[in-house]
């Protein structure tokens, strides 16, 4: 037996012994998972237990180095772990912008001190992070951002406004793009970390078409940020941001990789069999689902071995989000008038229509589909023009 096969066997046995039954049920919504943080209230004892045993093994972040709270697994071992978790239906123990976004950026750009300080907290789910990127006047054209950090010697004083800050009202810390030089558009932005309880930080949830408020407006009024809380070099935060956006795109494109990958026709068999045209659409959709899964697998294999184009995650983000939106259009079609109910217990308080509406943001957040296509055309296909 190869080492990897031994690892697979041991991992499977460990998961079977340690993953509580409740944590093998699919999450019902984004909010249903475990997000951690100072103020986190566990939804069940099982959720707490699952986070603790996984964090103790370093498996909330299996491929991070052990000294920063990770599992120290190789790419192959990480893939085995994820595959075995998927087979048993194990939930991700911790959902976290710290893991998906900030962590990879810190691993690449952080100082040793920053890595030792922040990464283990992220791995254990102790600090919940939010991302301060977009501003009211800077959406797709993010680099035009104006939130300003004035140099005051050993700290900056930050003033401005962010928007679409995911869960800012629930987060403990923020990683934030702040202009530190007004003369240079690209090389005038710094990547700062600060505590959301700092004086001068306020948040205001934004009510969305789904009725939920996962995003906030975030205001900074003379917020003091110590100089050692910068990641990367002064005025070079755009490099960090771009790197991190790559990871965000990977995450959003992979968002459908769990439950969203099952056959949609099998889930709505009766409807499919009664309506040939719907069935045909579902059949073609199933094909696309399998394609995306194979595409993601190939991309990850090529990414890990350095063979993927650095801008490839933009393509995956475009395809994955458009596919997820299509899926929920079909779910709504299959559901008919039942799927219109917004409040009833029968309709799980409108879970279907609310999720359908939520998916419309997939192709806007983290870079719109149109921006993704621009990037693919210019950077991968090397189309001419500015």
């Amino acid at each position, binding site marked *: 037996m190869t080492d990897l096969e031994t690892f697979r066997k041991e991992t499977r046995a460990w998961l079977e012994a340690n993953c509580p039954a409740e944590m093998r049920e699919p999450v019902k919504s984004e909010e249903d998972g475990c997000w951690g943080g100072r103020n986190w209230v566990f939804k069940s004892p099982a959720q707490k237990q699952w986070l603790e045993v996984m964090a103790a093994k370093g498996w909330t972040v299996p491929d991070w180095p052990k000294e920063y709270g990770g599992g120290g697994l190789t790419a192959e071992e990480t*893939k085995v772990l994820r595959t075995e978790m998927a087979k048993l239906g194990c939930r991700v123990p911790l959902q976290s912008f710290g893991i998906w976004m900030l962590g990879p950026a810190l691993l690449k750009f952080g100082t040793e001190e920053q890595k030792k300080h922040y990464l283990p907290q992220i791995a254990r789910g102790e600090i919940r992070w939010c991302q301060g990127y977009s501003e009211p006047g800077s959406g797709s054209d993010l680099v035009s951002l104006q939130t300003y950090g004035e140099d005051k010697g050993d700290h900056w004083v930050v003033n401005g406004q962010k928007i679409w800050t995911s869960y800012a009202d629930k987060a403990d810390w923020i990683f934030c793009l702040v202009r530190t030089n007004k003369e240079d558009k690209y090389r005038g932005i710094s990547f700062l970390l600060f505590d959301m309880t700092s004086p001068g930080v306020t948040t205001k949830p934004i009510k969305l078409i789904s009725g939920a408020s996962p995003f906030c407006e975030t205001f900074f009024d003379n917020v003091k940020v110590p100089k050692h809380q910068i990641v990367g070099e002064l005025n070079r935060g755009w490099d960090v941001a771009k790197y991190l956006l790559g990871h965000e795109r990977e995450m959003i494109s992979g968002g459908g990789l769990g439950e969203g990958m099952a*056959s949609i*026709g*099998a889930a709505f*068999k009766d409807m*499919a*069999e009664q309506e040939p045209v719907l*069935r*045909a659409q*579902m*059949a*073609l959709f*199933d*094909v*696309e689902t*399998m*394609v*995306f899964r*194979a*595409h993601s*697998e*190939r*991309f*990850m*294999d*090529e990414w890990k*071995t350095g*063979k993927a184009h650095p801008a490839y995650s933009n*393509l995956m983000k*475009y*395809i994955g989000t458009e596919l997820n939106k299509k899926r929920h259009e079909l779910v709504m079609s299959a559901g008919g008038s039942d799927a219109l109910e917004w409040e009833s217990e029968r309709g799980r308080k409108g879970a279907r229509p609310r999720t359908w509406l939520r998916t419309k943001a997939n192709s806007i957040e983290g870079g719109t589909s*149109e921006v*993704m*296509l*621009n990037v*693919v*055309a*210019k950077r*991968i*296909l*090397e*189309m*001419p*023009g500015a």
Partner: protein
Amino acid sequence: MGMNHTDDQVMLKDTVAPFLAENAPVKHLRSLRDANDQTGFARDLWKQFAEMGFTGILVPEAEGGLGLGHVEAGIVLEEIGRNLTPSPFLTTAVAAVEALKSAGAHLRGEWFPKILSGDAIIGIAVDEGAKHRPAATALVAERAGNGFKLSGKKQFVVHGHVADMLIVSARTAGAPGDEQGITLFAVPRDAAGVTTEADRLVDSQLAARVTLDGVEVTADAVIGDVDGGWASLTRLLDAGRIGAAAEMVGVGGGAMDMTFGYLKQRKQFGQLIGEFQALQHRAAHLYGEMEGARSIVLKAQHLLDDGDPRAELFVAAAKAKSGLACNLAVREGVQMHGGIGMTDEYDIGLYMKRDRALAEFFGDTNFHADRVARMNGY
């Protein structure tokens, strides 16, 4: 490695790609077509394929072949597609070889050496109507003495008119529509009662309508099990389907690259047309579709090579998706080339024609999407 190519696979690609680009580029297809060639491919090129070992890719090592898999066969087919090379590779070295793997020692001993040396062409005689419906096989094989007597008609038998042997699906029990009751036969084309009529198709290749009128074969001609030939037929068809899908990745990829090249050189309104965002977005979308097709084809090839039970499902999805993506590539190709794309002189139209033929080969997107639905239980 996962879905990365191994070093050996990269080496194979680095051998095949320049060989075909040099010896059988698109103008090779044109020259055959313009000379009104009646064979359908160049026999000397086929001999070279054999000498380079390509025809033995799927033949087991113990029987003189390379004992490789569908990933490797797909590497060759993608380059065949990219160059629009007329070749019996898909039917003879892929579909027929996979079918013969379920045959007895007698048939294997007769045909594997001839395939390896490039001396045999094998036609796949499955379709009986305009659309691919293998279960609908009606061509009858009646027991006669120690053997069988075959009567009926087949069509879309690529290179069937010059084939040395035809692999024929026939009904030995049950009724058309039943998977049970089908038997596969190896029928020499020169057997008494076999007639072929070759037609040039839209993509310039030659395919035959075949009539079998009381053709007598011995029991040795049976491939796989009598009445239970569906398993061998599926093996043949899945090899052919994933092969056709790989070829379409090449056809679509070739059309796409040609089109992107054109966007970077054609000027209108005083600028390169590739600067227009309307075209950039369509180009990027097309690229994503082709990359998806490439991925699912590779995944299905791996599953087939691993003997994974999910292979049939993934092959169906791969043939369906490569059909969609390649078709988009040739349609966008002709449209983005504008007027010149409609001319015979320019190659993009030849890609469109080849896509059309490959789309039908061993079942189109609709057929395979329907199979995906059935295998998923609806």
